[in-house]
């Protein structure tokens, strides 16, 4: 079996990467694993059944292109080397024609030699720029001209005209002033420089995001038959017992089966406070084990690990096109044919007015080059990539760039209470139960079967429990089950009211809820057995965020499945005026529907339990979910517990929109301003060289402006 890692061009989303993997694995003798984030595929193949050439063909059949084993960085280096070589040639030429003190070949003395030299140089430039010209002509033939068509046509016209005059000169008849070979070089050079800058910056932003994945260690130690074996990360299988010693990094996502320790999960959550992990806790690939020896069973390996899933989401986001990006593309689409027309008009007008063919051609080429909307092409995408990267750094994962745009049209922010505004770590603060020990045991036995935050907190410190049969969770109300042949119930006031039992605990209920506690009753078919009050703490920074939201004129709403008193007390503390309590999961969905009439609502809650409501809102945000990424249906996943990140999110959203608008305005204004100057019909004149320089400046401005987002 041989192994090779190939770079793949064309993978932008997980549908693409899964498709490629599936297709390759179908082929005889081929085993493939695709890495969307790195843009590579790891191929293990049987050299008796297939070879690398055949594999490259399979990749083509799947619709992609193999870039070979060469690293993307090497391709970039090559591009840079070419740019430097041609820049040096360009500089020498400029010195030669304008600085008469360092003549390399004297134009006057040896015009023929000079012409031949220029011809060779411009041919070399054409070969260097062949990809642009070919692409441009192809699109022009298909009647779908693009920017490359403008450049391609400009360069070809220039070259042809110069060639014609060059031949005349070689025959002894021509004028050296009609030679524009340098322009061919300059145009291609500046376009290449412009595109290099664009690509480099986009790649840099994506690299930073990819660095997240390289946080996982390359090797791991697994336990096999009481022996410790060191293996590579790829060799760890689901179900293996992995060992992690103090100071080491957790290799794969897993559940701890032995030992305990504190870990640093800041690379995901941004919080440097160590998190305690014990038997039964989940540990994340890439987290640092500070101080204990643990053994854990591998669960999500490789690209199923949380950190890989997050990196995948972010890479997909950088490849997504938001409405503004699509609009910019559309404008570009109309712009290009228009430019052809304008350049033709310039040509004709020049011919009519000045009756000079050379000037007319120069004007036409200058218009073609200067109006090229290259900067427009990167104005939005680069901005979005930088924005997504910045959000990623703040531990905010955005799944699609259109969400960043939509954020600016939000006017209502709906918060779920438990787990979002509050820490979700309820503690039993007060209780009154007949036969407390027994009552608690029954309660915990029931709640053990539920995933609700209240249930989890009740079972926090648990001793032995009873076996429960016929367990049932009643959504929005509570739980019930049979213990020792008796039917027991636990739940909220809404639930217990259905049973019409004599309630001698209502004064306690009132007392507890005034203390902002969540109420849980325990009862059987005959009587109420007790009541407990669970207290939840409001998260840090929440009040700050709500004040900020009011400041930027957003409406703030709180939803809760909890009782009215508790909800109101918390709302009062946070200054939230619109509160809905005792809301069922379906009720949450309906409420959001009512509020979201103009696609103006963002809901913040639990990515898995609040899924339907989150999906109903225009934008759904889930909080502090670093573990179950694949089931998280939110549009934005906040990995940190710090609610202040919400402010950061809105802030960045706003800044992104501002900078995008600046970019678009600038590029369009610039292009439109330059066209009359390029047409040679106005006092200020341009030539093709200055035009291509202007293009680079325009691109550079967009790039620099977009990078401002990083601050």
């Amino acid at each position, binding site marked *: 079996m041989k192994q090779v890692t190939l770079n793949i061009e*064309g*993978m*932008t*989303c997980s*549908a*693409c990467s*899964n*498709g490629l993997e*599936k*297709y390759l694995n*179908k082929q005889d003798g081929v085993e493939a694993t695709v890495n969307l984030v790195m843009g590579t595929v790891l191929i293990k193949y049987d050299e008796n059944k297939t070879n690398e050439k055949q594999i490259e063909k399979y990749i*083509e*059949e*799947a*619709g*992609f*292109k193999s870039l070979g084993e060469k690293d993307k960085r090497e391709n970039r280096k090559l591009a840079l080397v070419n740019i430097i070589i041609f820049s040096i040639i360009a500089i020498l030429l400029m010195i030669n024609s304008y600085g008469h003190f360092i003549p390399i070949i004297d134009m006057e003395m040896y015009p023929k030699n000079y012409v031949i030299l220029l011809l060779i140089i411009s041919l070399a430039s054409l070969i260097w720029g062949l990809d642009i010209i070919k692409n441009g002509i192809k699109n022009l033939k298909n009647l779908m001209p693009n920017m490359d068509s403008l450049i391609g046509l400009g360069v070809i016209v220039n070259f042809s005209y110069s060639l014609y005059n060059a031949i005349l000169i070689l025959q002894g008849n021509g004028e050296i002033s009609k030679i524009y070979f340098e322009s061919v070089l300059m145009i291609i050079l500046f376009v290449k420089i412009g595109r290099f800058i664009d690509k480099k910056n986009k790649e840099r932003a994506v690299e930073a995001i990819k660095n997240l994945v390289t946080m996982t260690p390359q090797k791991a130690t697994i336990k096999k038959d009481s022996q410790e074996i060191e293996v590579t990360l790829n060799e760890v299988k689901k179900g293996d017992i992995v060992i992690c010693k103090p100071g080491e990094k957790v290799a794969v996502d897993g559940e701890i089966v032995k030992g305990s320790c504190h870990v640093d999960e800041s690379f995901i959550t941004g919080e440097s406070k160590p998190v305690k992990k014990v038997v039964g806790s989940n540990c994340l690939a890439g987290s640092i084990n500070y101080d204990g020896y643990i053994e854990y069973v591998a669960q999500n390996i490789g690209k199923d690990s949380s950190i890989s899933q997050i990196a995948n989401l972010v890479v997909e986001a950088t*490849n*997504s*096109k938001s409405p503004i990006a699509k609009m910019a593309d559309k404008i570009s689409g109309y712009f290009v044919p228009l430019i052809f027309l304008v350049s033709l008009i310039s040509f004709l007008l020049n011919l009519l007015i000045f009756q000079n063919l050379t000037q007319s051609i120069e004007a036409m080429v200058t218009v073609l080059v200067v109006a090229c909307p290259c900067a427009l092409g990167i104005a939005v995408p680069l901005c979005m990539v930088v924005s997504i990267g910045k959000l990623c750094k703040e531990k905010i994962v955005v799944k699609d760039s259109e969400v960043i745009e939509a954020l600016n049209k939000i006017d209502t922010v709906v918060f779920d209470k438990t787990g979002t505004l509050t820490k979700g770590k309820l503690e039993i603060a007060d209780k009154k139960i007949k036969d407390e020990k027994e009552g608690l045991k029954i309660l915990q036995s029931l709640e053990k079967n539920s995933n609700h935050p209240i249930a989890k907190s009740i079972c926090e410190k648990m001793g032995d429990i009873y076996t429960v049969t016929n367990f049932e969770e009643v959504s929005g109300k509570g739980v019930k089950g049979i213990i020792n042949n008796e039917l027991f119930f636990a739940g909220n006031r809404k639930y217990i009211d259905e049973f019409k039992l004599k309630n001698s605990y209502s004064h306690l209920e009132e007392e507890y809820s005034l203390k902002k506690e969540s109420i849980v009753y325990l009862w059987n078919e005959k009587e109420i057995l007790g009541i407990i009050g669970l207290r939840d703490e409001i998260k840090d920074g929440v009040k700050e965020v709500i004040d900020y939201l009011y400041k930027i004129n957003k409406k703030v709403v709180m939803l809760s499945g909890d009782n009215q008193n508790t909800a109101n007390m918390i709302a009062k503390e946070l200054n939230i005026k619109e509160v809905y309590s005792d809301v069922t999961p379906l009720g949450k969905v309906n409420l959001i529907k009512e509020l979201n009439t103009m696609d103006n609502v963002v809901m913040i809650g639990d990515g898995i339990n609040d899924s339907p409501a989150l999906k109903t809102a225009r934008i759904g945000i889930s909080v502090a979910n670093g573990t179950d990424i694949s089931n998280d249906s939110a549009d934005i996943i906040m990995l940190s517990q710090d609610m202040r990140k919400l402010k950061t999110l809105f802030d960045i959203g706003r800044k992104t929109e501002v900078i995008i608008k600046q970019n678009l305005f600038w590029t369009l204004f610039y292009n439109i301003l330059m066209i009359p100057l390029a047409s040679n019909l106005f006092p200020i004149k341009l030539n093709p060289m200055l035009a291509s320089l202007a293009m680079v400046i325009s691109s550079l401005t967009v790039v620099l402006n977009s990078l401002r987002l990083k601050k």
Partner: protein
Amino acid sequence: MQELKINVEQMECSGCEKRIINALKLLDEVKEVHTNLETKEVEIIFKKEEDEQIKEKILEKIDDLF
């Protein structure tokens, strides 16, 4: 028929569009391929008149991709 219009529900992103175009163009009978991401429609233009069998071939090829 000389052209064929089909719906490809799995076509989600522009990367998928390019893939479909690249892969279908490898077939000898195919002259041009046009895709519309919003309507999920793929239009294939053949070099000459083809019979119903070509549809099977195309659908199979697209199935392979996802």
